[in-house]
C-alpha cells in the first residue's frame, strides 16, 4: 500500500541520505507543568532530537517504571488532559513544521474521547504517529487501522518475546518505524547490551523495510551511541524524564538531551 509520506517517513529518508542515525527523545506532556514541558519540547530539535515522542499521561501506566509513572502523576496533578496535550502540539507546530511528533500512551484516554474525534484532532494538531502500548495487533481494528486511514503512522513495539512466528503479525500494519523494546520489562529498567541487540535488530530487519529504533534503559551518551550503532537509531525516555523530575532547568535538561543526541549521532 502506498501512503502519503508523513514527517516521520521524510525524516528517515533524510537521515538515510545523510548516513545518520535517528535520535528519538521521550518527554511527558505537562510534566512538571504545561509551560515547562512546552519549553522543553520546543528546545528538543535544537538539541539534536530527530523525532519527539510525547507521553500522554494516564493514571495506570502498566508498562512504565517509576520514573515515568511519577512524571504522569505530576502532569495529571497539574491538570494535564488529552486536550491540553493536543493544544501543546498545536502550539509547538506554530514554530516547527518539520520535526515529527509521536504521541505515546495508553488507549483509554483516546477511547474515552472517541477514536474518530481523536484522530481528526490529532491530525489537525500536527501529530504524525501513535504508539499505544496496550494495543497489540490482535486489537488493530480499534485504532491502528483507523489511524493509518487517517494518515497517521501507527508504530508498533516489537519485544524479545516477539518470536519469528509472531513477527509478521507485528510488522503488518506497522508504519513509520518499528520500536524494538530491547528488554522484557518496563521503562527505566536496565539496558540491554548492544551485542545482544544487534542480532535482534537484524532479525526484525530481515522481515521489514521499516527503520528499527531501539529503546528502554538507555541513559548515557555512550549507551546511545552503542545501541544506535546496531540499529537505525535509539530512544531515550526515563533518563530525560528523570532530569525533569529532579527539577533541572529547561537549559540543563536540553544540555543533557544534547549529550545523548550527540552520542547517538556519533554512531
Amino acid at each position, binding site marked *: 500500500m502506498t501512503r502519503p509520506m508523513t514527517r516521520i517517513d521524510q525524516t528517515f529518508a533524510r537521515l538515510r541520505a545523510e548516513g545518520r542515525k535517528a535520535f528519538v527523545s521521550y518527554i511527558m506532556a505537562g510534566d512538571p507543568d504545561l509551560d515547562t514541558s512546552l519549553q522543553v519540547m520546543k528546545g528538543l530539535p535544537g538539541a539534536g532530537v530527530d523525532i519527539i515522542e510525547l507521553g500522554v499521561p*494516564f*493514571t*495506570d*501506566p*502498566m*508498562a*512504565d*517504571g*517509576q520514573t515515568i*509513572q511519577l512524571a504522569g*502523576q505530576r502532569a*495529571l496533578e497539574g491538570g494535564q*488532559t*488529552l*486536550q491540553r496535550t493536543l493544544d501543546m502540539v498545536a502550539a509547538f507546530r506554530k514554530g516547527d513544521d518539520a520535526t515529527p511528533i509521536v504521541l505515546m500512551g*495508553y*488507549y*483509554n*484516554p*483516546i*477511547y*474515552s*474521547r472517541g477514536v474518530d474525534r481523536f484522530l481528526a484532532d490529532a491530525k489537525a494538531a500536527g501529530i504524525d504517529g501513535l504508539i499505544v*502500548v*496496550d*494495543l*497489540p*495487533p*490482535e*486489537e488493530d481494528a480499534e485504532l491502528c487501522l483507523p489511524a493509518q486511514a487517517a494518515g497517521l503512522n501507527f508504530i*508498533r*513495539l*516489537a*519485544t*524479545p*518475546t*516477539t*518470536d519469528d512466528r*509472531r513477527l509478521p503479525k*507485528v510488522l503488518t500494519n506497522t508504519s513509520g518505524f518499528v520500536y524494538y*523494546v530491547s528488554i*522484557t*520489562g*518496563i521503562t527505566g*529498567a536496565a539496558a540491554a547490551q548492544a551485542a545482544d541487540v544487534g542480532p535482534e535488530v537484524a532479525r526484525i530487519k530481515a522481515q521489514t523495510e521499516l527503520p528499527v529504533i531501539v529503546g528502554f534503559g538507555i541513559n548515557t551518551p555512550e549507551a546511545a551511541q552503542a545501541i544506535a550503532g546496531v540499529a537505525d537509531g535509539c530512544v531515550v525516555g526515563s533518563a530525560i524524564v528523570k532530569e525533569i523530575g529532579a527539577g533541572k532547568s529547561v537549559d540543563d535538561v536540553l544540555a543533557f538531551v544534547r549529550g545523548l543526541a550527540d552520542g547517538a549521532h556519533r554512531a
Partner: protein
Amino acid sequence: MPEDRINSFMSGPDENGRFGIFGGRFVSETLMPLILDLEAEYERAKTDPTFWAEMDDLWAHYVGRPSPLYHAERLSQHLGGARIYMKRDELNHTGAHKINNVLGQIILARRMGKTRIIAETGAGQHGVATATVCAKFGLKCIVYMGAHDVERQAPNVFRMRLLGADVVPVTSGRGTLKDAMNDALRDWVTNVRDTFYCIGTVAGPHPYPAMVRDFQSIIGKEVRTQIMAREGRLPDTLVAAIGGGSNAMGLFFPFLDDKDVRIIGVEAGGKGVDDRMEHCASLTGGRPGVLHGNRTYLLQDDDGQILEGFSISAGLDYPGIGPEHSWLHDVGRAEYVSITDKEALEAFQLSCALEGIIPALEPSHALAHVMKIAPDLPKDHLIVMNMCGRGDKDIFTVAKHLGVQIKT
C-alpha cells in the same frame, strides 16, 4: 444446547475474547505471546480429563467441596418473605471462594512449567489462597498488595507471610487494588519466562475472564444439584457481591440460560452512588473503557483517567468489573444494584446474630440486598445468595466502624 447456541448466554467469549464489545486483549506486545500460550494451554486442559480429575480431587480433599447449601431459616423468618439459602463458600479452605480459581490456575502453571507465581490482592483473600496453593506445591509466590490494603487487612498479610509468600506493599498510584494489579503486570512483563500471573477475578486480558469464570462455576453447578435435591426445582433469584465479579460469575454462569432465574449482582456503593464518586459501582456509576487488558465498565473522569473506588470492603474496592458482567448488564440478562457501607455493616451484624455466621464484608453486601428484597417476596420464592467469604479478616474494620477498640 448446540442448536440454541446463538440464543445462549453461555457461549461467550468469541475467538477474540469478546463478550459483545467487552473483554479483549489490551496488553503490551511483551505479554501477548504469553497470553496466547496460556490460552492454548487452557484450551488443552479444558478437555483433558486428567486436568479435571486433579481439580476434583483437590476440591474434594484440600478445599472441602462441595460447600453446603444452607437454608438460613431464622434470617428468612426475620425478613418474613422469601426462603433464603446461603451457598457456604466461606467454609472453603482459606475462607473464601478464591481458592476454587487459584487451584485451576496453579495446576495450569505447573503444566506450563512455570516456577514463579505472582498475584494481586485486595482484601488479601486471593493472596492467601495463592500463597496457600503455592506452599502446597512448593512454588515461589509473590503477592502485590496496595499499601492501604496492607494496613486494613493486616491478619491476611501475616497469613501470607506465614505461608511463605513475599508480600510486596504497592505504593505506586494511590496504593490500592488497581495499583497492585498494575505492579503485578509490571512484574510479569519483566519476568515473562518463568512467571505465571494468577489473576484473582474474572478480569484481565482474555483468556482470564473466561478461565476464572470456568473455575468458579463449580459454585453454581453445585447449587443446581443441591437445590434440586432440597427443593426439587431451580432457585428464583440469585444474589452475589461483585468486586471484579468472580464469585458472582461462578454462581450465575450455570444459570444464565435458565430464563426464569432472576440474577442480581451487588456492587459496592461505598458512601452512596452519586457524583462524589465515593463508591465502586462500575456498572451503576461508570462507563465503558479499557484497563488491565480488557474493555469493561470503569469509574473514570471525562479525560479517561481512572478513578479510585471507595468501599469499606477491600475486596470490592476496584474501579472496574469483569467484562462478562458488563455484557450481561448491557444485554439485560442480569441486574446490577449497589449497597452502601452502612447497609453492608447492618447485614454483617444480622448474619452474626441470627445465623451464627460471621460473613466477610463482601458477601455482606449481597446479604444486604437480600434483606431489601426478601420481605416483599412470597414464602415459596427461593433466593440463593453467595456467602463467598468468612469475616475473620474483617473484624478489625467492623470494630472500628462500630466504635469498638480491639486490643492487639
